Every structure is written in C-alpha cells, then in structure tokens.
C-alpha cells in the first residue's frame, strides 16, 4: 500500500453535530451548487424532470429512527459526506492513481483527468461517500471544498467549505484534527465523538458528535413539581394527584402577594 502518505501535516475535516442537525438538506444543495460549477466536472442529473431523476451529490442526509425499549422513539438526522480517512481504502484500490490523499492537509481527492471510472474506490468506501458521475464517467466525492478553503479570491471568513458556511443550524464545523486545540478537536473531545464505523479500519478524520441524552419522560416522578399555594403542609413535593385547587385559596394568597409588591 504505497500511495497513501505516511502521515499528513494537517488533518482537515468536519465535525458534524448530530445533536443539532435538523435534517434540512441545506448543506446537500449548497454543496451541489458550489461543486457543480467549480472543482472538476459538473455534478450532472439524469432524467432530471422525468420518471426516475437521479443525480450526483457529494453529501447526503439520512434520517434514522432509534428506539430503545421503554423510551419514546427518537429521530436522528445523519449527514454523510467523505470522512477523509487516514487509512483510506478508496485510495489504495485505485488502479490509476486518480484517487489520492494530499500529504499536506489529508484531503482525499480524485484527479478526474486520470480517473477511468472503474468504480472500485466507491466499492472500497464503507460510507457510501463516492458517486460516479453518469455524464462524465468519473468518480466524484467531497473535496472538502479544496477550492474554497485556500481560495484567495474569497474573503478570509468565507474560506471554509460551502456546506459549513450554509448550515443554518451550525451543525457542521471545519477544522484541523491534527491540532489538538482546534475547534473540531476540542468539540470532538468534549462531546465524546468516536470515529464512524471503526470496524472498517479506515481511521476517518471527520467526527460525529453524538446526540445529547434526551430528557427522559420516565423520570417525571423524580422531579419537583409546583407546590400549590393552598397546600397548607407547605411541603412542595407532594405529587398530590388531583389537588383540589380552588379560587378561594387563590384569594388569600393574592392578598399577601399583592401586599408584597
């Protein structure tokens, strides 16, 4: 396996926050929009207005439902684009050298003029992050917006991937995982992010920040409830069933409360 760089100076990638992704597909379309008229061949669409429209996208949002026994089911939106793996199998299988991982920043790219469109790299990717463009016959994948992040024709603040810039929920963050103090490294550490599908041994750079635990409705019983003002016991913690509240109790309380104002 000779063509992966031994190591890269930077490990640029994304941190994707599953706790806030609302599944809006904004990143999907902005990615398509940027990339169809920038790096490489356009991202084509077949049968665009027909019975079976199908096109090339570099980023897609899945929606999962997760159910644990005795808890209400939970919905998780799950964006998926290339994770720019350190041990990228898609690179090593490539017969032409078109697929490569950049030594300086770790971005995994396809050099389209070398690509024969054999599809093997897409077979080798466990995440489904590569799509062969049907019109151009070359492999397309997330470029980490390599033509944005260093682009001197863009204002500095815009030198980030299109999907990150557009995400309305701020669920996508871009940074350097080689730097332990970077935004993404810190977020990943704080939120206990783990690499996706480690069984596949790809050492992905991108990290997913897991959904935070949900307030569990089962715990209702343990939580303080309001003490009715007419509860003479003065003990606030009575889960008193149908407390027979009445307007009479209110009057006495109001009188005192208004005095205090």
């Amino acid at each position: 396996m000779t063509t992966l760089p031994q190591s890269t100076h930077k490990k640029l990638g994304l941190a994707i926050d599953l706790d806030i992704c609302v599944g809006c597909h904004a990143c999907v379309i902005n990615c398509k929009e940027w990339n169809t008229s920038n790096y490489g061949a356009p991202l084509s669409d077949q049968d665009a207005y027909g019975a079976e429209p199908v096109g090339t996208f570099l980023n897609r949002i899945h929606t999962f439902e997760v159910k644990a026994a005795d808890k209400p089911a939970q919905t998780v939106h799950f964006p998926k684009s290339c994770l720019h793996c350190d041990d990228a199998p898609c690179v090593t299988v490539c017969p032409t050298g078109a697929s490569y991982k950049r030594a300086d920043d770790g971005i995994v790219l396809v050099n389209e003029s070398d690509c024969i469109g054999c599809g093997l790299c897409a077979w080798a990717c466990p995440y489904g992050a590569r799509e062969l463009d049907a019109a151009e016959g070359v492999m397309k994948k997330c470029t980490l917006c390599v033509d944005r992040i260093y682009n001197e024709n863009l204002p500095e603040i815009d030198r980030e991937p299109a999907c990150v810039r557009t995400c309305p929920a701020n669920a996508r963050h871009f940074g350097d995982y080689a730097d332990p103090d970077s935004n993404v490294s810190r977020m990943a550490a704080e939120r206990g992010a783990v690499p996706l599908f480690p069984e596949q041994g790809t050492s992905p750079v991108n990290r997913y920040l897991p959904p935070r635990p949900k307030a569990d409705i089962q715990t209702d019983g343990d939580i303080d409830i309001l003490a009715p003002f007419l509860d003479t016991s003065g003990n606030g913690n009575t889960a008193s069933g149908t407390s027979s509240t009445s307007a009479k109790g209110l009057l006495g309380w109001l009188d005192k409360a208004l005095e205090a104002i």
Partner: protein
Amino acid sequence: MNKHIQPDLDTSPKVSDEIRKTTCYMCACRCGINVHMQDGKVKYIEGNRDHPINRGVLCAKGSAGIMQHYSPARLKAPMKRVGPRGSGEFEEISWDEAFQIASDWMTPLREKHPEKLAFFTGRDQSQSLTSYWAQQFGTPNYAAHGGFCSVNMAAAGIYTMGGAFWEFGQPDWERAKMFMIFGVAEDHDSNPIKLGLSRLKERGAKIVGVNPVRSGYNAIADEWVGITPGTDGLFILSLIRELLAAGKVDLEYLIRYTNAPYLVNCDPESDDHGLFLYDNDGKPQVLDRATGEPLPFDQQGVKPELATNYTHKGTLYRPAFQLMAEKYLVDDYAPENVAERTGVKPDTIRRLAAELARTAFEEEIVINQPWTDFRGEKHDEMIGRPVAFHAMRGISAHSNGFQTCRALHLLQILLGSVEVPGGFRFKPPYPKPVTGHPRPHAKPVANSPLNGPHLGFPQGPEDLAIKANGTPARIDKAFTWENPMSAHGMMHMVISNAHAGDPYKIDTLFMYMANMSWNSSMNSRGVMDMLTDKTEDGEYVIPRIIYSDSYSSEMVAFADLILPDTTYLERHDCISLLDRPISEAEAMCDSIRWPVVEPDRDVRGFQSALIQLGAKMKLPGFVNEDGAAKYQDYADYIVNHERRPGVGPLAGWRGEDETGSGRGAPNPNQIDRYIENGGFYMDHIPEEALFYKPWNKAYQDWAVERGIFDAPSPYTFNIYVEQMQKFRLAAEGKGELQPPDHLREQLKMAMDPLPTWWQPFEEALVDGEEYPIHALTQRPAAMYHSWGSQNAWLRQIHGHNPLYVSGEIWEQHGFEEGDWAYLKSHHGEIQVPVVRMDALNPKTVWTWNAIGKRKGAWALDQDAPETKKGFLLNHLIHELLPPKGDGLRWSNSDPVTGQAAWYDLRVNIRKAPTPDNLQSEPAIAPQKSPVGQGPKNIRYGEDF
C-alpha cells in the same frame, strides 16, 4: 519508490465576475443572498453574511434557486386559453392584448358592480400594493392567503398582545433558558429558527418540542411532548392551572402591563355584561387597593386589586384576573383530567409547569438598563423571565386554533415573558395595539375606490362586513357572524362561494400566486370541478379567471388569461414596513429584490403589470390628473409612492439628503442605496428602547420618529379580550346588531373573552370509532409547497411522499414494508404507500405537504414520481364540515377567524393491495403543458 505523488491544484480559482446582492424568494423567509454572476449567468448563490435574517446561511431551497430560476416550467409569455378550462391548452399573446382583455373584462364591472371582481393574491409579499390596487378598483373582495394559512396565530397574537410570532416577533434566542416550540415543522422563519435553536443549544438552554411528530426541530429538542392533535389548548390551560394554583405568575407584570386588573361587569342582566368599567374619559378602571376607589388603569401610583367584588352603581364588577383564575382553577383542567385527551402524562404536565416557573422566576435575568414607562415611572433595570415560546400552524390550523393561540399567549403573559429579556420580543412595526389597526371595509360604490382598507380587526359587531339585508358583503363571507374576526379574509372559500353564487355571483376571479386548483385548496378535485362547471347555457359558472403565475402550475390550466410573472431574480420587489418587513427585535429593517438578471422571455413582474393595468383602467392612485400613468413600473412606485406624507414603501435613505429613516421625501436614488447596502436597510433600536416596547417611552418616541406611528401608542395586553365579549353579548340577544339564531350558541362558545378549548369540529361531528385517526401534513424543509417539484435538485430529495403511520396503528393493521393503504375521511378516500414511524403520536398519521402533482404540470414527465406515488391529503379534507342534520353546512374553519382547519382531519386506514402500477389514487387526468417538458439530462455548471 514510496514517494507520494499528487497533482498541483489551483486552490484559488476565480469564483465569479461579480456578486449581486438581493433577497431570496424560494420561500417567504426572505433571506439575503449573494448572487455570483459569471459571463452574465447565475453561477452560485450563497447567504449574505450581513443580512439580519439569515446572517450568511442559506437553506436547501435557497441554494437551489439556480434551478428554480432556470426551471423548464417557467411561463414564457402572456397566454389566453384556447381549449376547455383545465385542459392546459393556450395560445401565447402579447402584453398589449393581455391588458386589453383584462381591461375589457374588468372596467365594465367597476362601472357598475365593483364587487363582481374578486381579487385574491395568495402568497403575496406585496400586499400593501395589491390591497391598494383593489381598494382603488373599489371591490370589497380582496385578501391574500392568510385565511387558509395561519390567521389564528396572527389574530390571536394581535388581539392579545398587539403582535404575533414570526413576522411580528421572535424569541429572545440570545437569552432564553427554556424554549417551548408548539406545532412547528419549518415555519416561515426557516433560517432564523434554525440559527436560534443552535444558539440555544450552544448556551445549554432547554428546548421542548410539542408536536405529534418527532421530526425536524422536534427531533433535536431535549424533550418531546408527542401531543394528540387538536388538544394543545387543553394542555396549555392545564399548565396555566398549575401555575395559578402555585401562585407562580408575575403579578407585578400583570398589574402594570395587562388588563388583568380591569374591572369587568359581572351582572349577567346588564347590557354591558362582560365589558370593562370606563370613566368619562373612556379609560378602563381598576380598583385601587389604597383608596378602594376605581381609578384609571394608567394612573401613576395606582395599586390595583386583582381579586375583589366591587359594586358600582348597583352593578357588580370584578377584575379580569379573578375571572380568569376562577375559570382555570377547576378540575376540568387538572393534569389528570386532560391527560387522556392530550396524550400527555399528568406528571409531565406538572413537571413542565414547574420547570417553566423555576426558569422564569428563579433564573430571572437583570439588565442594568434604566428606562421609563408610559406612566412616566422610571425603572433602574430590565427584568427578564427567560422562558420563550414559539408556535405555528400545528396549533393554529384547527377549528379551536384561535383560542389555543390565545391560551399560549396567556401563558406567556402570566409568566411575564413577553417583551422582556429572555422572552418573546416584537419586531417593528410591532408592537401595535389591536385598536391601532384598521377595521374592515366592504362598501363598494360604482366607479369609486372602496371606503377604506379591506382587512382589519373588528372591534365589535358594528365592524362586520354585512350588508343592510343581512347578507355577507364579501364573496368569502369574511367578517360575518360565522367568523367575525377573519382578519386575513378567507381565500379558501372564494371558489366554492363563487361557484355557489352565495352570497352573490361574481364575474371575474383574478388570482395571483396561489395554486388554488391543487394544494392550496381543500377538496382539490371538487375545486377543479367548480372551476370547470358550466351553466345550462354553456357558460362557465365562474365566468372569467385571470391568473398570474411564474410557472406552469396546476392552477394555470384553469385560467382564461395568464399574466406570466418573472422569477425572483428578474424583478423589483420590496419587503416593506407597510406590509410584513424583515425587521428584527433589535432593529427596524426592510429590503428589496432587483433584477440581477434580465428576463429572457416575454414576462413581467406581476406588480409592474398590475400598476400598468391599473393605469390602463385609469384607477385612481395609478394615474395623474391628466390620466397619464403615475408610475411606470413597480420600481417607480416603490420609490415614489407615499402612503402618508413622507412615508412610503421603503424606510431607508429617504429625503433629499438621503438620511431619512422611515420618514422623508421620496429619494430617486433610494433603490441604488439599497443595492449598495446589500439589498436591505437596517436601523437599530436604541438600548433604552430594546425591551418593554409597548410601554417603553423611549421606544414609542423612536417609533414615532421612524413613521411607525404618528403618535405614541402605548397599550396593555389583553388577557381578557373585551371585543370578543361584544360578539358574545350580541349572541345573548343584547345590542342592535344581532346574529342569526343558528349561530348564537357557536358565538357564545367561540367568542369567550378568556382562552378556552373545545373539541375540534370535525372530531365532534364524525364517529370517533369510524374515524379514529388524526391525519396531518408537514412542510419538508427542502421543498416549498408545490414549487419545489420543478426543481431538478430538490425533487430528487422529495419526489414522492409516503404516509407515515404510527407504530401502534402499523401493528394493529399488520402493515409491512412496501405496503399501501386506503385512507378514508368523511369526504373521500385515497390510496397511498405507507411507512412506519414510531416517533409519532400513536393516534396519528402524517405526510409531507404538496408533493403530489397533477400529470402534465410543472414541465414534468407524465410518469414523474410526484404524479404516481406522490399524493395530496387535500382530497380528504373538505371546506365544509359533514352535515350536522340541521340542514346547514358549516364551514371547516375556526369560528372566530375563519382559519381553515386543515389539521382537524379524521380518517381511518385499511390495508390496500399494492397497485401493479404503483399509482396513488385519485389520479387526476393530465393537463397539457404550455411549456413542454424539461430536458432529459442536465449538467448545471458546465459553462463555468
């Protein structure tokens, strides 16, 4: 050997030739966009970072704007119908001919019966122009889409607190510590809500989603309350009961800023029963604790009672607060007693009440900012109650929606969290007292403008739009006893009323931007029949239909004359303070669109066409004294029209020196200034005026300077809406104006001046055993109603829509993956594919809205998935309720506002055999496409 070889990349390619900044219109959120142009073509669209609405982000629809702009479904030229209605057969004509036809149809109406023109403008962002035009024409029949959209939300907000969610206000995203969101899928404030939710998460605030469906915002909420549809009112009133019972309400706030202490006539025999006690100056009275005397509510130093019996001239009066407390402190609202209906456990209700109280009162925010209130009292600080709420159609699109929205506002007010730090905040031109709005006007006079604005907020029966003979003055029957406060009109009733000739026949139906034959109507097939129905002599029952659309929609096929609009990148527009601007809680803002590309077809911006048509018909306001056109086009109007002296459509850069904000003479360079500034104008509210706006002297003065008001207009919130009681009094037989007898009971129930809850009408009328299931729709974030399907990128995401079925129903019926089902309501039956969803209220099914399409529309293939598997729930919903057996057909609307009750739908479900052709039913016969079909394959971006 091991050397890593990699190509040299140009990492700084040219991005574009030029950026043109304008406003998105892939939905009504109105985000700022940077349109990157290369070789005269749109290359890339991104969010404008400086823009107050979206601060740089852009949603999927916004990014897909390119595909919308180059859509193959764009209309190319004006057209007149040559085939039968509904067929889609047209002939292209010139604009001169189109105007001539339109004028030949409408001018005679104006000369005799202006009301025979019904002008309804759908998803209109230029209502201040279109309403002005309708007013100049003289027809009472004008409204936009609010009646079928969310007038409950808007009207409840305005009657209760002088403003509403979304356009008129927003949560304090930066300070709220607990946030509850009710019945929202996307809402209009698409990007701001997402930006806001993300800020809440960053700050560790708690988000609670109340929604039968746990998707979108509810998926990321920290807690999900999977409420049963139509029961939010009960749930909220139960929260209110718990708060009242615990004394966890902000009494000081209630006393100072609301009508809680106002004395209410409690003598059922009195003609003024339920109305406030006023002094001779017309000021509502409160009972002063110090003196035991009634005093004006706004008297300095007054210390009002909130619970007392006070007899004045032999009549018993009690404070509104007390009436409220007595109403809710009963067992009906106890958590145990609402649990079954709402599907929310009693403990959950109690805990949420406790969390709200704790956050509001124990996590109080204090901002050290002195301010002065309208009574002249000075305050050293601003106290915040950091609980914020937001809600939308999930609570408003029910027949109990108005009162449910009111209940939510009451909850906010009891917690003291409106217009305070951490709570809910208004956006200029709001807050505005309900009495500061126009009242409805509906008296047509031949050849003259209407006697005043069409729409408004009735203050009592005298404001109803009813003719002397007791029949409705408006074709949509808005502002009648059936729905007295229909503040946005009732566009959804226009076609069926016009078809029935009830209350009268019309001649020309002129519509703009509403797909009325399809997804924006209930009973879509019935509507198609009404539009094509003929009288015995072979004429169409609705004689003439003029329609403006930009695209080959379903509605186009049903019009006789088509005025083709441009796309949003090709025209001038203004998002005006006279209408619904893009303001933020901290700034007054408005914005424009301008042609960043010129149309390559024979199309015109509808607003320009309307202005030109107005001039051709010599409508006052559109011609000068010499009869010449007053405005050339919309851009000319935007700059030069003045509503009041010095106040026009745009607030920014007014006056000769271009420094006027809100006020100032027209400035011929105004549009250029907007373009230079990125397409919008923003004027920050001073620090001292940032909160307590309805009562804050500094805000009131600032607003007057900006032309928002002509005089300071402070007011108090209405926990008790006296205007509603006036209608109730009439229902009780008091007063001169009397409702028809059959409506008395409904009015007594509906016009309760205190929020209340009743069972949704459809639910009450159908057999619960026969139709045990609630059926809903939701907006998908990546689609806008019907428009999205013509978009090559978006339609790949939502090309068809399954019916999501709760796990419970799924198992009960033994559904399996890939199954189909019959879904039946009292009105009809559809056949659709089903998918299981567990994160769903067990009694509920739902689907994405408006994905199903008619064959032949939108330049799509006849076999497009939208037309095959895609379906509309609308076929099951009817604009009328099932018969009650009283010989009358009641409308499927909220009895206060007339809002269409989309989400009251009740259905049953059965397994269906999987159809061989995988075609959903009903399948409507195809329409011909006047624009052909879109190309097979596309590669957008290959030119760059």
